[in-house]
């Protein structure tokens, strides 16, 4: 049962514990996070208070809901935790301490609760045992008493009622002996008869002995062992006597003793006869045995008395007294022996008639633990009180179970405290780390900013003197120098230029790294850009004898929208690399639409050496894009879905150079990584170009990849996404009509290309058809001649590859001589380099026009124009010195110059006036703004940047604001379109004038709405470059 109790209690405790945990967590989640402000502000060290406020805030229902559901919320709270609360260390220490203290108290309480329970139990056991013993004692006593009473009746009937008496001493002793089992507690009974003094003599005579008194030996308790009844004196004269006439054998020594002579007995006897009930003496040492005993006395009356008889009547009716001796000590001993567990319990019996001085009747005075049970004993004598006191012999056992339970609870609580502590510590640590990290991050960012600034500054600082150096070198080259000196100067200048470009690259890299690089969105002509890049490398390729070619697919629109500069940069990088590492063969740039390649990709067979541009093997082009995401989806169903306005270009640069060693291929796009240290020494370069290219391609939403075979060559391919810059109407029209109007003079011409290499022929075809020339490709001279004869229409040109010409020139000329055509076409030789032995062969026919590759539209046009003697119309205008064009451009333009420096103002004005411009000067930005408030008549504005009061940036911003406002008005029809022009919107070209030509300044210029910048003092060429962007030549505007 106690086990069950413990179990129940355990369950109770567990429940309580769980609730407490839930509450704690819920409070934590709630108070610790939601109410963090109050928690932190008010009472970091006082969780109780916070708890209370939290409790008050929410109603009770919520609280319970919270408890039942908070268990599920624990995992999620760790997510909301970071960042939301600043952990306070002291707060958490207090929580842990509070938790520990609380649980120590709880465990102490548990211990106390359990021990008190055990105590109670013990008490109950003791009480029940004690009561049981007391009841038994009482019962047996009562049984004895009843029997004695019955004997008194017996005596009254057979001794006094019969005459002569039926009982004598022998009968009595025999009877009592045989019935002693009826009186378990009595050691003996005796009967004393009432004898008045007057009857003494007769009585003595009748009995044959004298009445003796018992005082003497009461006074002599020491001699109890050698008790001699004969030594007792005869009783002195008394009013009456109560000599014992019958006695049980065990107490036969009391025969003839006068009971009234003993103090205890006399009192007993007197009380018994007056009350008519059994009366007990106080315990006293018994005669002879000298053991502690109690005597029970019953009076024997002459006749039956009514129960309400007065004491006097009773005394008169008294015949004798029957006494029973109770030897308590031995009797109780016997009794207890009958019961089990004598060992566990200690019994004392006391007579407490005199409550202040209880008389011990049984039991030793061994001290035991304080626990004691007192049971009253009622022996039927109202005058005397008895009680039984019980104690446990053993001390109570140690309360092991409660101790274990509370200890266990404490341990669990401590463990939880430890967990909380560890968690809090961990969180604090993580937070600290986080803070540290944040700090470091800030530092790193600051360092990054500093790095960028440093790079920008340093680059600028280097560039400025470098520009000086370059300028000086340029000037030096114009002086009279001998060949060696000139060579030195050239080298110095080339190095300087390399250095400047390197600095630009480093700047780019820094910008890309900091994510500051933004792409422009302008319309540009892709073919023009490729022509430019080609011309950039033409000198080098011609010098090396490497063939350089470009092919752009028809399907690529004329105009694209994107960042031409960056596109050009990628291309320049790739081509620069190619040309650097290619000694023979070709470099071939192709531009296609991605869709176009996807369509043809399956049909394309492995390239043989014959199908390439120069007849040398190349690296497999397809491999270079096999890793592209756009291509990587499963075969057949490529997910390259391009939205219609987006143009996905794929550009390949194929070379027949040394290739990239396999081991270096993996790190090719890593900044500052080169194939080997020797490369940078032999070829120069920083190894940064490809990395930049990759970033730029990424910015253009494209990818870059390569495939390379050592000793065969490399092919780099990149994709880029542009917007279509063509108007839809333009796009539909015949592509040939879109060609630049400059080349219109070639339209309708027909040419035959003689080339046995299809790739090269395609390039030639591409370039010539750009000029509007219809081109037919044949593989050999024979075919060409045949075609000319049979073909419809006249053929204006025969384009022959130098390679074929060298081989078949003689035969060709002969044939041409033999069979002259009606209108002999112009011979055009496509040569790889300038130094060729063409002149020697050109006998008999018109010297052929030699076009030195790489082919590009403008060069082609110019050469053909010269060769064919047509179309000189436009050349002078464009070929004139910049000053002249400037004059054309600026003549009659009204230009505002803003500069706070009078001298500068005057000089700039002079310069512009010289080109025929109508110049207005302004000394401050504010004045300029008032002048430029639309509507005005200015065509352009040159603005100094550094000005007091209002600098150029701000002034430009203000001007742009005004213009915008005006444009809005025009749009809404509020303002009339002004008289001076058919301007539907206002945008005045504003050019910054600045002495320092930093990239950053340039960007700043563009940012605040300027259109460009010119350096101070004016340089004709730069001025022209900038101005021509805004002004078309007057003839153009008029037409």
């Amino acid at each position: 049962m106690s086990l069950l109790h413990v179990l129940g209690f355990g369950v109770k405790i567990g429940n309580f514990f769980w609730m407490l945990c839930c509450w704690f967590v819920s409070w934590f989640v709630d108070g610790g996070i939601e109410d963090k402000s109050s928690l932190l502000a008010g009472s970091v060290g006082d969780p109780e208070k916070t708890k209370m406020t939290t409790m008050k805030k929410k109603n009770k229902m919520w609280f319970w809901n919270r408890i039942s559901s908070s268990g599920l919320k624990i995992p999620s709270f760790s997510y909301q935790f970071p960042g939301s609360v600043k952990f306070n260390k002291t707060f958490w220490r207090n929580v842990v301490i509070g938790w520990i203290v609380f649980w120590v108290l709880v465990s102490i309480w548990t211990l106390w609760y359990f021990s008190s329970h055990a105590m109670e139990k013990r008490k109950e056991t003791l009480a029940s045992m004690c009561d049981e013993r007391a009841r038994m004692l009482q019962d047996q006593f009562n049984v004895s008493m009843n029997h004695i009473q019955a004997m008194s009746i017996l005596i009254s009937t057979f001794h006094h009622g019969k005459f002569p008496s039926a009982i004598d001493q022998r009968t009595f002793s025999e009877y009592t002996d045989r019935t002693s089992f009826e009186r378990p507690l009595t050691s003996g009974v005796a009967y004393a008869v009432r004898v008045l003094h007057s009857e003494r003599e007769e009585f003595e005579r009748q009995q044959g002995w004298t009445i003796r008194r018992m005082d003497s030996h009461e006074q002599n308790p020491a001699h109890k062992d050698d008790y001699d009844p004969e030594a007792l004196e005869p009783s002195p004269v008394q009013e009456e006597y109560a000599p014992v006439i019958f006695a049980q054998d065990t107490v036969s020594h009391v025969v003839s003793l006068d009971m009234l002579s003993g103090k205890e007995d006399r009192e007993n006897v007197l009380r018994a006869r007056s009350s008519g009930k059994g009366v007990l003496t106080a315990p006293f040492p018994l005669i002879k045995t000298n053991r502690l005993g109690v005597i029970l006395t019953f009076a024997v009356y002459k006749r039956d008395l009514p129960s309400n008889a007065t004491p006097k009547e009773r005394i008169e009716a008294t015949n004798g007294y029957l006494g029973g001796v109770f030897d308590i000590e031995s009797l109780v001993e016997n009794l207890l022996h009958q019961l089990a567990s004598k060992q566990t319990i200690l019994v004392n019996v006391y007579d407490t008639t005199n409550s202040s001085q209880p008389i011990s009747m049984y039991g030793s005075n061994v001290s035991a633990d304080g626990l004691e049970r007192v049971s009253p004993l009622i022996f039927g004598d109202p005058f005397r009180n008895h009680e039984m006191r019980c104690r446990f012999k053993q001390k109570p056992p140690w309360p092991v179970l409660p101790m274990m339970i509370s200890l266990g609870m404490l341990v669990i609580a401590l463990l939880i405290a430890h967990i909380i502590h560890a968690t809090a510590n961990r969180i604090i640590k993580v937070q600290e780390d986080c803070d540290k990290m944040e700090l470091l991050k800030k530092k790193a960012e600051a360092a990054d900013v500093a790095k960028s600034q440093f790079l920008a500054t340093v680059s600028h600082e280097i560039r400025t003197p470098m520009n000086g150096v370059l300028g000086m070198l340029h000037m030096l080259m114009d002086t009279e120098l001998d060949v060696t000196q000139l060579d030195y100067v050239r080298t110095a200048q080339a190095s300087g230029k390399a250095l400047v470009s390197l600095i630009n690259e480093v700047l780019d890299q820094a910008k890309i790294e900091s994510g500051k690089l933004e792409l422009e969105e302008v319309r540009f002509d892709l073919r023009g850009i490729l022509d430019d890049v080609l011309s950039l490398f033409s000198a080098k390729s011609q010098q090396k004898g490497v063939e350089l070619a470009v092919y752009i697919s028809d399907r690529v629109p004329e105009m694209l929208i994107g960042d031409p500069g960056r596109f050009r940069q990628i291309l320049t990088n790739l081509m620069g690399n190619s040309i650097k590492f290619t000694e023979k063969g070709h470099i071939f740039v192709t531009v296609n639409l991605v869709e176009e390649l996807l369509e043809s990709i399956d049909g394309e067979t492995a390239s043989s050496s014959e199908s390439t541009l120069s007849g040398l093997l190349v690296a497999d082009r397809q491999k270079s894009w096999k890793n592209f995401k756009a291509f990587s989806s499963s075969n057949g169903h490529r997910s390259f879905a391009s939205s219609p306005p987006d143009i996905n270009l794929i550009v390949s640069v194929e070379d027949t150079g040394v290739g990239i060693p396999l081991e270096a291929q993996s790190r090719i796009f890593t900044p500052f990584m080169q194939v080997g240290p020797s490369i940078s020494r032999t070829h120069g370069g920083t190894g940064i170009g490809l990395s930049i290219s990759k970033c730029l391609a990424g910015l253009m939403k494209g990818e870059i990849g390569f495939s390379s075979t050592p000793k065969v060559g490399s092919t780099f391919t990149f994709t880029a996404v542009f917007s279509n810059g063509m108007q839809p109407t333009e796009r539909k029209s015949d592509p040939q009509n879109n060609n630049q109007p400059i080349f219109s003079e070639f339209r309708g011409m027909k040419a035959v290309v003689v080339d046995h290499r299809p790739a090269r022929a395609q390039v030639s075809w591409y370039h010539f058809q750009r000029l509007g020339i219809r081109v037919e490709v044949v593989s050999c001279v024979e075919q060409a001649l045949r075609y000319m004869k049979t073909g419809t229409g006249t053929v204006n040109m025969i384009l022959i590859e130098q390679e074929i010409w060298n081989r078949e020139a003689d035969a060709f000329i002969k044939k041409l001589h033999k069979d002259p055509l009606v209108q002999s076409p112009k011979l055009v030789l496509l040569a790889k380099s300038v130094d060729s032995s063409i002149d020697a062969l050109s006998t008999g026919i018109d010297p052929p026009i030699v076009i030195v590759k790489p082919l590009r539209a403008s060069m082609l046009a110019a050469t053909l124009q010269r060769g064919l003697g047509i179309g000189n119309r436009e050349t002078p205008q464009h070929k004139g010195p910049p000053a002249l064009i400037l004059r054309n451009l600026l003549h009659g333009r009204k230009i505002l110059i803003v500069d706070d420096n009078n001298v500068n103002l005057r000089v700039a004005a002079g310069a512009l006036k010289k080109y025929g411009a109508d110049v207005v000067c302004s000394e401050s930005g504010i004045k300029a703004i008032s002048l430029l408030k639309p509507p005005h008549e200015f065509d352009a504005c040159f603005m100094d940047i550094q000005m007091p009061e209002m600098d150029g940036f701000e002034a430009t911003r203000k001007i742009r604001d005004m213009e915008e406002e005006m444009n809005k008005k025009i749009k809404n029809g509020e303002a009339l379109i002004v008289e001076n022009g058919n301007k539907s919107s206002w945008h005045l070209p504003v050019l910054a004038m600045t002495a320092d030509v930093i990239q950053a300044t340039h960007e700043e210029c563009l940012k605040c709405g300027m259109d460009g910048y010119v350096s101070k003092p004016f340089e004709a060429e730069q001025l022209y470059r900038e101005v021509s962007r805004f002004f078309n030549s007057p003839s153009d505007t008029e037409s």
Partner: protein
Amino acid sequence: MNAGIAQLQMQFRDYTISLYQQGFLDDQFTELKKLQDDGSPDFVAEVLLLFFEDCVKLIGNMARALDKSTGTVDFSQVGASVHQLKGSSSSVGAKRVKGLCVTFKEYCEAQNYEGCVRCLQQVDIEYKTLKTKLQDMFNLEKQIVQAGGVVPQVDID
């Protein structure tokens, strides 16, 4: 008479070249001269006049700003003036003044008082020297014109 003109022209040419060689002037001055034509015959003189006026004004400003007796030295004002002067001098091609201004500006940014004062003095001397030199040149020009000759184009290269 003719010989006199030729001699004057020779002298003018030599003098001009010496000005370039000694670093008083640079290309910009040539450019400036190119800007002068029949439409604005006194263009160079006008610009130079403006320039020297500017110099006087700016140097005065800087001297005031660098005057310690008036209290703290206002480097920012000095910097602004130097910047102006640098702009002006580069516009007219006053090479030495411009070079000095660059140094001056650096001192000013470094807030080097000693350096600033030294530079200011040098600039003062330099522009005055330039002024006299140019004065001489113009005098020569005038003499040539008075003598009925044509002021020769001086090719610096």
